[in-house]
């Protein structure tokens, strides 16, 4: 269970990443953010985003056309 949830279903690139960056500011260090997206590019985008920002992508799953990411705030 993540500490916070961000629903960006229906939003196109790059909005899911921008919204996630903003939402992570409200997550405590070491806390987690669950992101729900439908943009098919988001799987690779969130991998790259976490690698670039030093945050940890601890889970990436797909169910139907919904992609779920759990990000642990590390920076």
């Amino acid at each position, binding site marked *: 269970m993540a500490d916070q949830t961000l629903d960006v279903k229906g939003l*196109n*690139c*790059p*909005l899911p*990443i*921008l919204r996630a*960056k*903003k939402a992570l500011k409200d997550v405590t260090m070491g806390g987690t953010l669950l992101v729900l997206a439908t943009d098919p590019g988001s799987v690779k985008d969130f991998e*790259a*985003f976490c690698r*670039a*920002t*030093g945050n940890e992508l601890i889970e990436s799953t797909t169910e139907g056309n919904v992609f779920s990411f759990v990000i642990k705030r590390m*920076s």
Partner: protein
Amino acid sequence: MAAVPLYILLCSGEHEKIHMAAMMASVGAVSERPVEVFVSMNAIMAFARQKPDTNRYRGGAFSDLMKQKNVSDSITLFRQGRELGDLKIWACSMALDVTGWDEDRLESDLFDGALGLTKFLSDAEGGQFITL
């Protein structure tokens, strides 16, 4: 290791190119990468203050599709990049001179000021440089 800064020279007034610049600038900035954008030539026209959205962006078939699909506004993406990361946007001093515009004719709270090309190119040495 620090990310290589990204420098975007935006000259085109085409909606598609302005939007790509906005996407690259905002994503770069939120990915902890310093980004600077130099707005010149026809591109400066799209940044006029309080220009109606209906005629701010001129483009081709893909521009029409973006408007139909309510794709995020380019100026809004630039603003979000500034809010969330290290993004600077400069107005080309030559473009301001040619248009006869002062900086207050540009979208408010978006630009860091006017700059000459020589300074922008000098700052961009060692960074990744993209022209649109």
